[in-house]
């Protein structure tokens, strides 16, 4: 965890998580398979986020889930999980572990801060706790997870420098 900035009611730090994107139909067989691998059922409602000590599990869309490990796993284990899941023809699991970067954004002014970079409606009544959204932040595709007291924002690794510079710039002026 690297602290990026902390000012005027906004704290941002960079986190190192691992992630898997899972595509499937969300039906019984799919749920059972995932459950047998990680002992957790995928969330069933669109944009819903479930969280435990180990991971965030979110449904991005009707046929897509993202599984983010909050505690670093042995990478081999992750790859093994992916290849196990991929044995099934009807599922596609793709490793996103090191292809994404993760930012934790907290503080009481986090909405106002993020709204300098995105039009997305962050008000609790439109973006409730434990829900997620895919949207544009600073002109790039991001996923944002509302974990009640903080957001996790992820984007492609190649944008890391650009995105950090935008965050810093927004805080500076």
């Amino acid at each position: 965890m690297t602290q990026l900035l902390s000012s005027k009611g906004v704290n941002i730090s960079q986190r190192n998580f691992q992630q898997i994107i899972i595509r499937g139909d969300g039906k019984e067989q799919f749920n059972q398979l995932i459950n047998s691998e990680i002992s957790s059922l995928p969330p069933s409602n669109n944009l819903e986020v479930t969280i435990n000590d180990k991971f965030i599990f979110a449904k991005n869309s009707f046929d897509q889930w993202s599984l983010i490990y909050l505690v670093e796993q042995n990478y081999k284990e992750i790859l093994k999980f992916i290849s196990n899941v991929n044995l099934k023809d009807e599922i596609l699991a793709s490793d996103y572990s090191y292809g994404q970067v993760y930012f934790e954004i907290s503080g009481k002014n986090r909405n106002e801060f993020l709204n300098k970079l995105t039009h997305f409606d962050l008000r609790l009544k439109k973006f409730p706790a434990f829900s997620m959204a895919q949207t544009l932040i600073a002109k790039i595709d991001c996923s944002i997870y509302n974990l009640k007291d903080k957001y996790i924002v992820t984007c492609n690794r190649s944008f890391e420098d650009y995105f950090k510079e935008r965050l810093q710039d927004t805080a500076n002026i």
Partner: protein
Amino acid sequence: MSAADNKKSHYINAKEISFKFDGKKYLGYKGDTIASALLRNNVRLVARSFKYHRPRGLYTCGIEEPNGIVQILNEHNEPNTRATVKQIYEGIRVNSQNRWPSLNLDVGSINNLLSPMFSAGFYYKTFMGPKGFWKKIYEPVIRRTAGLGKPPKEFRSKSVHQNHNVDIVIVGGGLSGLIAARKLIDTEYDVLLLEQDSFLGGILKNSNKIKKINNIDVNKWIKETEKLLKASKNIKIFKNSLVTSYNFTNHLIALEDKCAGKEINKDKSELTLHKIRTTHTILANGHIERFISFRNNDLPGVMLASSFEKYIHRYGVVPETSPVIFTNNSTTATLLKSLIDLGHKPAAYVDARDKDKIGKKLLDYLKKSNIPFYINSEVEGCDGSKKIKTISIRKNKNKIIKVKSSMLCVSGGINPDIHLFTQSKGLVKWDDKLVTFKPDVPFQNTITLGSVSGNYNYEKTIDEIDQKLSFLKAKNIRFNLELNDSNNFNIQELWETKHEKKSNWSKSFIDLHNDVTTKDLKQAVKEGFDRIEHLKRFTTNSMGTDQGKISSINSLGIVSKILKKKISEVGTTTYRPPYAPLSFSAIAGRNTYEFYDPQRKTPIHYWHIENKAVFEDVGQWKRPWYFKKFETESMHLAVQRESAQTRKTAGILDGSTLGKIEVKGKDALEFMNLMYTNAFTKMKPMTSRYALMLGEDGMIKDDGIVCKFNDKHFIATTTSGGAPKVLADMEEYLQTEWPHLQVFVNSITEQFSTFNISGPKSREIVSKVFTDVDFSNENFPFMTFKVFDYKDTEVRIMRASFTGELGYEIYITPNHALELWKKIFHYGKAYDLVPYGTETMHLLRAEKGYVVIGQETDGTVTPIDLNFNWMIGKKKKDFIGKRSLTRSDTSREDRKQLVGIIPLDKSEFIEEGQHVVECERLPKPIKTPVEYLGHVSSSYHSPNLNHCIAMAMLKGGNKLMGRKLFVSSTYGNKNIPVEVVSPVFIDPENKRLVS
């Protein structure tokens, strides 16, 4: 006869500030605008007009100002600033615009004498020819004399954008806006209150029309209200924030000036562009007064009556103690009283209304105060040079008398400020009683309150707010007003007064900003421009930066009289955003310079920097273009060195930017067969293939290498720039055309870094890096791939080549990418392994005759044009674009086809983009067009052949092999003789690839 202080105003106790106007020093008070400070100093002449360079003075007290537009010298030379809006601060330096050498002596004012030339449609009629004159003579001259300020000096704005999502936006913090806001305190709604001025209150501060609200003095009431609003949980106030656009689905844009009244701090943002999405919009943005056209109604000293009143109450300055007041409506009564209450005596009161409309009360007051007044009368015109001296009044529509005064306060009535309402697509209607357009049917969730809704009666406003907010869960608080004067509005329609023509200098203006006269309007109608939108463009009426805020309704009135139609039939012109000018820097926000476009970097980026890479933008990616071996190495030398070394031993390219897409599912094979031209059915597992993707029009869209794990699992690569589009196309077809196919596609571009190593020594190098893998030709043939463990991850290596040499593509997860890259160099050192960039990549592939999508192709090239027939799975029933390959157009034999060309004189160089023709010299002059055969798509100096090699797209190129043709050049009119050859210049037998 001069300006005086309003001693009752708090401004007079404010801090004194010194500022400069046209180099001269003046004193003003803190909170003054440039305009109010200049009036305080009796400066009447502030500008020269746009076209005729006539002397002009301040006409209004706000955003609607047509004349007082100035340049701020100390703020990066900001031009076109409204003197009536911009506040002064210590040391501000202001210049007038559009004059030379000075405001008092302006050479351009000769235009005024030549004015018969400058009639309506002047530009369209005058600058017709001769050919070439426009660019050399007309435009430079017009640019110097017509126009506004000088462009700002180089300056990087720090303006920012701020998005808001709210339930209610209130536009305007005047009487109705503040009452509406108070009713919404601590309700369930998120509310934004936007006020263009630096203070709340609007009409409450601009006049003394309203004395008390709920028995509290209005100034106290405003303070109390502001305190309550600020303390609330749900209401935010933005002052100095002007709403410029009201777009569809309740999206508003407001520009906040964060440096109002202070100098710009270069490190902080000076402007915020608020982008607001709301559910309901309450428009409480008031009204704007309009003028009346009369002879010389532009002389410095003519001012709108309500603006004069605003200067008295808002800024504590009486611009002139004995002005003449000219009105056709009831709103000027309070101005008259304000002056008399302060002990001043207007020189005359001229009212176009009859005595019934004026009312006994006001007439008695005029008599009692001993003010010369004229009813049923009008101002015929005024005279003076650079300021008013005498004012001619036509008494009882008959006899003309002259009155001496230096200022004339005019009111032609008031217009609801319907700009935002009509921008939001609301319907307006004509009101005969108010003699103006007012909002009728809103198109969005829009509520209008107060004078913008056409309700000019303050007492009725209270009921109006109660009623219009009743659908909201607003608080039920009652407000009672105590007025200075009952304000039953009435008006006598009057657009222009009859005047005698005295000289060419005498003009009656309809648009002060663009110097359009009422005569221009009449002439334009005579010439057939009788529709209001045409008339506007032909005369440039209301097309200035003030958009005719004080005059556009007047022009409708005048035109309706000429056409003998009702104004409602004439209609209005279209109101378009922005409401008032806003600077481009505000629109751009932070999305400039390094943030203009997001930048993508590969995991090897910093290694490239350390190794003196020069970067090239490929899409959003930063890719090494070439690497400098030493600081002064030129691009040409670097590329020649990299290319030669790669063919000699080995070179490596960071190809991480290539798009990668994982395709998986029961029907993956069928899907891939449909998406690409190639046939994948017979392809063996763990092999790869160069593949083409077409559009339905048969034109090549993208290419890449497809790896087949098995019939249900593929990984496809795309070009660096094409990746998002290819993925989107795959998703589109899966969702819209072939939902029955069970296939998922995921982008894995970022999950793999890719290194392309090639050259005769590449096998030896990779064998040393991955000691467990057998890279022999038998075990690892061309176009196959393997996946194996590497540390805690997996590596996929594919034998493929984009250079024509033995080569491998290495795919590794980014966590190990840099380490592996360095390791390859560790072992590559013994073989003089070079890193190379995109330019060398292009050169090497051109030597081999490989095409680049977007260089050889341009969206009009089919695979047949590139001799890619072998890549088309003709036996497949269908694939995207298949049918189009047999269209009459795509099967033509004279289409442009890919060929190679080399100069006959090996020392010559062919330029990319040049034309290929049959003639050695172009005829001079060219009487008939020279037949064009095609263009040069790629050209390089090959270090391995030691001459120029080029590729070209030539009409019927396949049949031109061996022909002598010519290529045009930028070095002269002599064309370069070339020979058409096969585009494969190196290793046509593919020995290097497959051994």
